[in-house]
């Protein structure tokens, strides 16, 4: 069966475009497949950057999560907007554009065009990042927002990094943390 029957919304189109951009980046860099972890973190960061969406993320120790995204991805797959090419679907996913992807994007062209740059930037940047590094990125953003809300004056970088070491000791190397923080700065998710 083909044709879009159930995944018609703007949020479906957003997820589809994320998958399109992420997959292109993965192919350019020959990176690991696009899985469920990345498809939680990329929309979360897009929401922090102001892209409107219906999803409400819960923040837990392994980072932001929204179960509605899983359902919407399932619907996209059923409509042929995307595919999951994984041979072990129970364990991991490998999302790729499907034959109906362009049809769905065309239905929401104005919305996608409005946020095209930020979606492309974040999706292509994060798609090639390892899942544990995505957890690091999410935690850094969480801690930055925590310190930013206090009476302390910027810069917050050293406070954020020190707190990270307390709550997730020995989990990330200093080089990892520095690299991650610098990338978050370039996309505007944290300041110095």
């Amino acid at each position: 069966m083909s044709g879009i029957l159930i995944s018609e919304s703007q949020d479906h189109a957003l997820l589809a475009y994320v998958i399109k951009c992420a997959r292109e980046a993965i192919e350019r860099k020959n990176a690991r497949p696009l899985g469920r972890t990345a498809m939680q973190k990329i929309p979360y960061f897009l929401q922090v950057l102001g892209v409107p969406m219906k999803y409400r993320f819960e923040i837990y120790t392994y980072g932001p999560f929204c179960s509605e995204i899983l359902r919407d991805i399932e619907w996209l797959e059923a409509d042929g907007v995307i595919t999951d090419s994984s041979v072990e679907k129970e364990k991991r996913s490998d999302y790729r554009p499907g034959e109906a992807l362009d049809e769905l994007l065309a239905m929401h062209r104005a919305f996608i065009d409005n946020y095209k740059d930020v979606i492309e930037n974040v999706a292509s940047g994060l798609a090639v990042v390892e899942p544990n590094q995505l957890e690091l990125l999410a935690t850094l953003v969480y801690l930055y927002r925590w310190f930013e809300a206090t009476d302390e004056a910027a810069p917050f970088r050293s406070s954020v990094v020190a707190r990270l070491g307390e709550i997730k000791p020995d989990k990330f190397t200093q080089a990892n943390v520095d690299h991650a923080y610098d990338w978050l700065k370039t996309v505007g998710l944290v300041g110095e």
Partner: protein
Amino acid sequence: MSSDPSERPSDGTSAKIESRSHETGAIHHLSRFRGPIFLSERDEPNDRVRCPIHGFIKYSANERRIINHPIFQRLRMIRQLALTEFVYPGATHTRFAHSLGVMEVASQAFDSLTAKQGDRLESIFGAVAGFEGVALAKARQILRLAALLHDVGHIAFSHAAEHSLHKGMGHEALSEKIITDGELLGGLLTEMYGEDVPSLVASLISKSGPVPQFKVLQDIVSGQMDADRTDYLLRDSHYCGVDYGRFDYRRLIDSLDLIEEEGVLSIALKREGIHVFEALILARYQMSVQVYYHRLRRVYDKYLEWYFENLPEGLPQSVDDLIGLNDFDMFGRIHVDSADPALPQYQWAERIANRRHHREVFATGMDARVKQLRIARKLTDQLKSEYTDVHIFDDLAKASIHKLVQPDDRDEGGGVDVRLIRPYGLAVSVAEESQLLRDLTTEFQCVRVFADVEPESDLRNEIKARAQVIWRELGG
């Protein structure tokens, strides 16, 4: 239930909090906090109003100014469940009463948490800019305001007509606009509570959420076991005359606790709260199936959608136009329009005015698989092509029952979780502990097909039989 706020001192640097059991009146917890309990005398809850669900709901002089503001008073003219009264005649209650109820439940939840973890919360909130010295009082106040105003952006027929009327600005975005705009409620909030408060209140109801320190407050208003859900399940049950939505919410509130894991502070449940949490989820499931997604309610939602989309003057665009819409005015307009067949919106107005609706000719199960949803949509197209003289449409209804992910899903991207605190402080997932929740569907989703036929007609029976044949042919 936790302490009655009016029993607390409004000032003092070493306030003693007494938390009383709702049922026994016994004092069950004592704690000491540094800051005041209320921000000022005008924030002490000295006024009260009767509520059929919660008894008395108390509010302050400052809160009374918000409640009496025309933007909030308009919620008296917006029914909680739109045209559900066409199915359950008692369901005529309003967003106004629900909003007061959410404020009350949120306050009880906050007081339950501060009774157990007040020192910790005072320390966390007190580090936020603008909260030093007034941490709990100010946090409690912004929580009450967010709860009171969480639905202030609803317009005529609440969710029913949202798809049509809220194009470009959903009710949550409109609520945020009303709360922060100085010309709407933002000015009043700033005058009474300070210039940082409107944005803080708005952040508690926004999708993107507040600063991390206040995520707990957001979860009280709209989380996995929140004040909004608690009040609407109880209230809607009461007014619909059904019992599906009732659960022992006082026990739930009493079981609330906090947990901090790897720097993330979350609301958790004490071990003894698991059974009432299960009851909450079951209540949500039953109310979704029996009330919120009742087939006839969904038919009338469609009529409202089509009515608004066919209005000759188009849909309202400005904020002023949107908040000017209420059920009372629109009901009047619908009745007027139902008498003029020349109008493009006539056929939908006439159906609503005369309660003359399409009949169900097919439905998938309540937890249909995705493939079945698609097949049902194909089935609709097939019926339309075969019965060209009959108006046929379908409705895809979907709702989240709970968001708890099974434990073994965590490897790939984590999962939504409610932590259960066992004795001696060990925390586990609620889903790990509850066989019932593991077995309960996470989503309610179905497709129903409706046709413009008489209830007991041969034509209806013929279409129903034909739908079953098509369903099987398509592999449903």
